[in-house]
């Protein structure tokens, strides 16, 4: 039998090499070089993601038939033009011309029509965490690397920030509440347990927090969180689930340190997940964490569904045959020594490796 793997892997690692590829949606210009040290907010590359286009009707502008107007076009495809620059003409006694309405580039010439591409605000690709540029293709992709702690989540609201971590509440299962948010938390990244009400999230906006890390959020707050100006990262799921003990321990042991929050939404088909990166120095070479883990005894896993959703443990044995569960479902399973619950049989489909 071939080696089996767990393809669901969540990284919760105290010290590792973190290598991330940042990519522009379209080719543009890269503004950093290999070996350069960058900060979280630095722009690595820029591109024109949504340029606007304008047809310049040369025949109409010059008052000439199409065929004749073509002869008076003074630009070529690819030329850069400035606003007010003559694109066609002059012709006739009145010396009629057609001028570029704005700075731009001649994208195409189709008969007597000129298509002008006007650049909008460029899209800037941010580093997201402090690190060193290790590779780039010069037009679209930049790879940066650092060492530090890595805590991956399951859901994010799509925002990025960088700030100092502060703890709110008394434990991983504590509810985030407004009376726990005071002025001392201004500008911090908050580590809290669970959230089931929009009020504390809005109050955190008032405090200009740089981010919130939660174990869980009730589903109805997803749309609220998506409108917040700061990143929200959920480590476990939706409902009332505490941050898993490994992640909570790692986060709280780094209170006072700066962390980069990349709250990309993630999802089962996305390569990149929401994550917290806490840059830490390392005197030695560190491996990049594994993306897949062989399914063997002794690996640390997390349960993804009830009745022990979020619980962490170690695989003790992998059943050869599928086993029946109380729901009547029959599935291949593993015996897991779950912290706080003891030995429990869990379907392999409901486990992910926690590394």
């Amino acid at each position: 039998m071939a080696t089996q793997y767990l393809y669901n892997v969540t990284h919760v690692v105290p010290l590792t090499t973190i290598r991330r590829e940042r990519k522009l949606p379209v080719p543009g210009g890269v503004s950093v070089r290999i070996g350069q040290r960058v900060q979280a907010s630095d722009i690595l590359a820029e591109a024109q993601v949504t340029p606007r286009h304008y047809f310049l009707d040369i025949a109409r502008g010059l008052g000439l038939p199409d065929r004749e107007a073509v002869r008076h076009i003074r630009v070529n495809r690819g030329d850069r033009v400035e606003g007010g620059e003559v694109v066609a003409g002059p012709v006739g006694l009145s010396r009629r011309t057609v001028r570029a309405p704005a700075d731009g580039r001649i994208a195409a010439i189709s008969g007597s029509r000129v298509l002008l591409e006007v650049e909008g605000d460029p899209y800037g690709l941010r580093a997201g965490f402090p690190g060193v540029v290790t590779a780039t293709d010069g037009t679209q992709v930049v790879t940066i690397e650092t060492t530090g702690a890595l805590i991956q989540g399951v859901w994010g609201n799509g925002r990025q920030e960088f700030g100092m971590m502060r703890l709110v509440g008394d434990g991983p299962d504590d509810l985030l509440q407004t009376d726990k948010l005071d002025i001392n938390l201004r500008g911090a990244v908050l580590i809290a347990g669970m959230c089931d009400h929009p009020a504390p999230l809005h109050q955190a906006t008032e405090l200009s927090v740089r981010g919130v890390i939660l174990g869980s959020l009730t589903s109805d707050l997803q749309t609220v969180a998506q409108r917040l100006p700061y990143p929200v990262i959920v480590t476990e799921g939706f409902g009332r689930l505490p941050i898993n003990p490994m992640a909570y321990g790692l986060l709280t042991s780094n209170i006072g340190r700066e962390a980069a929050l990349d709250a990309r939404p993630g999802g089962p088909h996305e390569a990149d997940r929401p994550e917290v990166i806490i840059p830490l120095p390392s005197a030695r070479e560190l491996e990049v964490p594994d993306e897949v883990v062989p399914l063997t005894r002794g690996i640390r896993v997390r349960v993804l569904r009830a009745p022990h959703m979020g619980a962490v443990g170690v695989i003790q044995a992998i059943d050869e045959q599928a086993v029946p569960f109380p729901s009547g479902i029959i599935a291949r399973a593993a015996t897991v020594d779950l912290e706080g619950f003891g030995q429990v049989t869990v379907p392999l489909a409901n486990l992910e490796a926690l590394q």
Partner: protein
Amino acid sequence: MSTMLEADTLLAVDVGSINTRASLFDVVDGRYRLVATGKSTSTAGPPLFDVSEGVRNALDQVRSITGRKLVDESETLIIPATRDGSGVDVFVATTSAGPKVRTVLVGLMPGVSVESAHRLAASTYLDVVQEIGLMDRRREEEQIDVILAARPDLILIVGGTDGGAGASVVGMIDVTSLAANLLPEGQKPRVVYAGNRTLAASVVERFGDRTPVSLTPNLRPAIDQEDLEPARRVLSEVIADARASRISGFDELSHWSGGHLLPTAEAFGRVVRYLSRVYDRRKGVLGVDLGASQTTIAAAFDGDLRLSVYSDLGLGDALPGLLRHCEIDKVARWLPFEMAEGDIHDYLSNKALHPSTLPIEPVELHLEYALARQVLRAAIGLARLSWPEVRGTRGAESMPPLEPILASGAALARCPKPGYTVMVLLDALQPAGVSTLVLDPYSLMPAMGAAAGVLPMASVQVLESGSFVSLATVVSPVGHGRFGRPVLRLRLEREDGGETVEGEVRFGQMVVVPLGQGQHARLTLRPERGFDVGFGGPGRAGVLRVTGGAVGLVVDGRGRPMRLPVETVRRVELIQKWMWDLGAQL
């Protein structure tokens, strides 16, 4: 090398978003039979984005069951089969994994060619992200900006009847080709032209060398004629190419299958269409495939296939899309207990995060199948809008006569009790009259559809074999009455001489009469006034030959369209009772 006629071993692989399945068929006693299946976690998604690993694991399971060596040392499929019994003679592959193909639809007339194009898009894995048409009020440059911002994988151009006026189509193509050529290399879309045939050469010329165009016969050759099949075949190749560009391993599967990597939905639809020509042509055939990322509904009426793929309706990552179609109370109504809507919402969101997870607690299983019912209900409601009018349909809300109804998908296949599957299908699909419910427990439908092109006999013979489970013959009278009022009288005479059953079914009852798989019986139905079982109108009696199933003969006396009690306690009581009657209790 074996020819297709000599071929006797068939291997089919279906790569889904969650599971990859391999099915090996061989000739046993002169007929094709399913010999072994292997199932593995799909690896089309993160972290591998390479389907090969999942395929290898599924093939390895088939090898360990049969002892048959399928791949050589370099992990290449052995084809054709060798004298030592290694390899296979024919390989077919289907896939529904991977992102949908981002599509800009360029069409002429809303309600004519554009409507046909939408039907075409909905029948496969296209995501129409932008639409440009003759009635578009945006300026040409705005249309260019829209196409560029959409970054499409595909531009699908339709419009004009063959030989009809072409100026309007040409105008739209000028704008579209300009936009396509502005997209950077590496992001150029595929272009498929399925419009006025006389303009084809002009279309190719306008796009030039930098953007290749695939030509396919006009999907609307005349104003009153629609033919989606040729375009669907070309789109299969486009979809395969788009997926291969993002996910590794598809090239290899395509190579093994001789370049015929089919979309799962298309292969699924082929089987349904075929069956609609084989079974009673006065009735339609319905196939439902409930997946994690999409739900496919295939209905065929005497060879006229209506295929719909809903990527926002599925039991995995697509689950949040359900809330765009209904409120959460529509899910809660199917539960045999009360549950807070917030908890249902949390469950749904978590399942979307971890779509491959399994419900191991009874409460979660009930919730999972409540969601399954509502996903299917929403999908069938949408799909029905594109079905033709069928004789014998009793009212706009009622389903047309269907025989059989085929159910596929991992969630339905793993349902712990056949009675539970029947309950889910009856609630979700609410068939009318007499139908047979058939389960495809090994998800063989796509394999059969893909094989139909190369080994037609294999498809027919496997479909007739025991690899599909007949769940029940169901009688669903159309009509309404007070709870407890008589709906019909029945008499079941078994052909094997077993005990004859006679009885009355009352409104609100779910009645099961034991009739095992493969057993046949003569069934006499005498509906009361106001109830129609498909014998030509309400109150009309009739006799028919029926076949048994895992559950037996089921009479669903809940009326059509089904109306559940609004009062929660009463509804929960009834659902528990119906489950008990069907043998669906856990």
